[in-house]
């Protein structure tokens, strides 16, 4: 099998709504523990250059945190050096598999009012796919 299961290196054509989500999955699953403080979360988001991190503990996925969650914590006046990722109000994680179609993934996002899905295969989570990642499939 080629590396397209998780990578996006060898596209030679435009991807469309009936393609597999696996083709859009970001390269690495970037995670953070629930005990990290909100400020550590901000530093991690900045260092990784991403807008979202997966919250995990012992291979178990607890949620997704984003820049928006940090903004909400600032707005709520939380102490950013003592409140933790676990204190943030993360919605339940919505998952799909690499074989889910782009169309089905978009429907999932709309049904659950989320912009990110955790992509899992039999071995566990392999990445995250965002609404913006998939938008290209419709605009191409």
């Amino acid at each position: 099998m080629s590396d397209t299961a998780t990578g996006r290196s060898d596209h030679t054509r435009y991807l469309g709504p009936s393609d597999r989500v696996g083709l859009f999955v970001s390269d690495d699953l970037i995670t953070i523990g629930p005990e990290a403080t909100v400020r550590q979360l901000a530093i991690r988001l900045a260092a990784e250059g991403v807008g979202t991190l997966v919250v995990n503990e012992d291979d178990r996925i607890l949620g997704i945190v984003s820049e928006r969650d940090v903004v909400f914590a600032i707005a709520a006046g939380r102490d950013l050096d003592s409140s933790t990722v676990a204190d943030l109000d993360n919605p339940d994680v919505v998952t799909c598999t690499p074989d889910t179609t782009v169309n089905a993934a978009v429907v999932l996002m709309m049904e659950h009012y989320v912009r990110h899905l955790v992509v899992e295969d039999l071995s566990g989570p392999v990445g995250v796919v965002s609404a913006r990642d998939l938008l290209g499939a419709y605009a191409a």
Partner: protein
Amino acid sequence: MRAIDGVRRSGVGVRPQRPIREAAIIMDQAGVGTLAVIDDDRLIGIVTDRDLVRRGLAQDLAPTAAVEKVMSSPVFTIDADADLHSAFKLFRSNAVRRLAVVDGDEFVGMITVDDLLVDLAADLADLTRPIAAEIFLPVDDADMPTTAQDGDDE
């Protein structure tokens, strides 16, 4: 279409001297990720949720620090009456994802690449549906019923 027609959300602003925390509250309440930074009715910058995180919190700034410390400036603007196509050009030639739409000196709203993409995708879908139907559905004039068959109500 004019630039103003590409604005999907009314513009929300904050003053440069206000604290980061206030910008966060406005973003939260208005449900937006970008604020115009406005000083004496003049648009002087843009601040995004990402700026609050990466240039603020991650750089050890306190929520009481001023918005102007984390904003982006100058701002790419487009006139409200300008052709929307000129927005595409600006996006292409500058590495920005948002343009501030101004009417004279007044900030009226934001155009984002994402909003334009969503509109374009919807337009494309409208355009391609009839064409796809023509291409993929078998069209065979000979099989079209042209007269009533036995047993039909008509």
